């Protein structure tokens, strides 16, 4: 029988106490892990947004909420499709491409998806106004914003390129984001019925790690019919050249479309950066609170445990256990509690982050396994700190007083 054996047996014997012993630290670690997991994703998203969409301008109805670039068009109020023509006819320099959208969250069977109507490039190009203004087929100026190899390695595609690819989209076809396809259980070639409209799945898009994964893209006019919103759109995405944006494209656009909200991804992202900063500070504050509360709670638990075990500690001393082995026994117990609390906290926090996180950041949140050893280490450290005093007092107990007391 080794010391650890004794610790284990005692833990098993007083199993119900275990919960109260590790509760505080488990919850604390869970919250930290959850916040951190979400913040990491959110920060990465910001970086990618800036890289990929730095030159994009989003035109939204006046009343739209612009907290999240990707979700800004979802359920936004609408504006007339005619605004597109206004931009085109204004002949503003620096506009590379323009893409009107109409987006709504809808239910298909038991699944929520985001239905987004777009005008395929070819149709925009074939509009008489387009041709007049000579914007047709204007190629993307990659020099504005070279695509980043790092993002590609992370599995994110340059979305300007990807969206540009949608050249042709008949009104009876749709494109599915990868997670929408999985949820609906549809593959390429299958058919999708929304209300009275049946669409053929022309393509399943590659995973982008954004809300786009949950979207069903189809022709703008089809969506307008489905939603009964003739000639209405919820957003216009304007791809401008960086230089043009700094040269005042934004304010010129505001002159052309006075009753809209015009914003760049940089502006939107800046609020997200602020949110991330806030999350970091909350994380840190929480960390400090957890350190305190966790240590105090484990200390308190260990103190109760020592009191309960006075007689037992007396017996061990009586049988010749050195005091160091009493410290060792109690600190080993605290360490086990800490590791346990850290591991469970990590799992709970990760679960919360992966399940609830996407609602906050609008993209999938992955488990950060690297946090497991950190959580366990931190929690064990806190537990040991909390247990030092009770263990020290236990080691100083006089065997005879403990034998006589009970």
């Amino acid at each position, binding site marked *: *029988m*080794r010391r650890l054996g*004794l610790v284990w*047996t*005692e833990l*098993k*014997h*007083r199993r119900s106490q275990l919960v109260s012993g590790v509760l505080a630290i488990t919850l604390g670690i869970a919250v930290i892990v959850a916040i951190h997991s979400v913040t990491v994703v959110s920060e990465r998203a910001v970086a990618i947004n800036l890289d990929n969409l730095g030159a994009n301008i989003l035109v939204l109805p006046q009343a739209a909420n612009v907290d999240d670039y990707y979700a800004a068009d979802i359920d936004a109020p609408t504006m007339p499709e005619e605004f597109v023509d206004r931009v085109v006819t204004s002949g503003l320099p620096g506009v590379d491409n323009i893409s009107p959208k109409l987006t709504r969250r809808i239910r298909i069977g038991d699944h929520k998806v985001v239905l987004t109507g777009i005008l395929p490039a070819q149709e925009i190009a074939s509009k008489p106004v387009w041709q007049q203004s000579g914007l047709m087929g204007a190629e993307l100026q990659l020099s504005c914003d070279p695509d980043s190899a790092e993002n590609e390695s992370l599995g994110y595609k340059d979305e300007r390129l990807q969206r540009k690819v949608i050249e042709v989209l008949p009104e009876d076809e749709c494109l599915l984001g990868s997670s929408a396809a999985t949820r609906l259980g549809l593959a390429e070639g299958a058919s999708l019925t929304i209300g009275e409209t049946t669409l053929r799945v022309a393509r399943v898009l590659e995973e982008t790690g954004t809300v786009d994964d949950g979207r069903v893209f189809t022709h703008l006019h089809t969506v307008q019919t489905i939603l009964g919103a003739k000639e209405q759109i919820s957003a216009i995405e304007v791809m401008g050249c960086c230089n043009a944006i700094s040269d005042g494209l934004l304010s010129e656009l505001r002159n052309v479309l006075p009753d809209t909200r015009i914003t760049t991804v940089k502006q939107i992202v800046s609020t997200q950066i602020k949110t991330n900063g806030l999350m970091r500070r909350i994380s840190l504050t929480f960390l400090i609170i957890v350190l305190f509360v966790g240590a105090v709670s484990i200390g308190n638990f260990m103190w109760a445990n020592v009191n309960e075990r006075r*007689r*037992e500690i007396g*017996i*061990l*001393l*009586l*049988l*010749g*256990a*050195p*005091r160091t*082995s009493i410290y060792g026994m109690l600190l080993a117990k605290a360490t086990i509690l800490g590791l346990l609390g850290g591991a469970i906290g990590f799992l709970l926090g990760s679960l919360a982050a992966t399940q609830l996180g996407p609602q906050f950041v609008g993209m999938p949140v992955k488990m950060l396994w690297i946090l497991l050893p950190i959580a366990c280490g931190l929690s064990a450290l806190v537990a040991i700190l909390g247990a030092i005093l009770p263990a020290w007092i236990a080691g100083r107990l*006089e*065997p*005879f007083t403990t*034998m*006589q007391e*009970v």
Partner: protein
Amino acid sequence: MLLRTTGLCKRYDHREEPVDALAGVDLELDVGTFTTVTGPSGSGKSTLLLALGGLLRPTAGEIWFRDLPIHDLGPGGLASYRREHIGFVMQEFSLVPYLSAERNVMIPLALQGYDRATQRRRAREVLERVELGGRATHLPRELSIGQQQRVAIARALANEPDLILADEPTGNLDPALTTSILDLLEELRQERELTMVMVTHSPAAAARGDRRVHIEAGRIVDTPRPIVTGAVS
């Protein structure tokens, strides 16, 4: 000579007034002898046993175990003295509640550093000896009080000590159980040539000793004062 004390004193520094629990005890224990200690409550019997067992540091005086000065040992030295030479049997409930009989007996062997197989084998042996071979895996609460006390005796014997210190080992047992436990202790003592000191309130139990020591107010008195109330012997 196994153990000798000279002028052994123990003063408890109590908040109000200090208590002189031992006030100069001179005692000699020869190898293989059985000494019984009697005395009124609070006279210092338990304190004497604890001092002999290296569980508390005497305020004055000396304790020699063979040529080992127990009064001079530090905590580590005292712990190893207890592990190697002393077996304690306390009144009752001295088993670790969440460990089986066998594992309770294994504690002193584990503290001695024996490997697990040896711990188990020797624990089984002593449990057999106290006729509890079939109860090895029982928890203390699954044993009768008498059986618990036999486990405690087995545990005291497991590390083959030289000196058994028993503090009212039959204090709460009924007469039949008392006799059987005392018989067992006596058999084991003779079989293993152990030296034993037993504190008891029972005159019958005290009468079993080769040597009887009576303590009053921390001092050994030669002739016990007759017990005034309810005297039996």
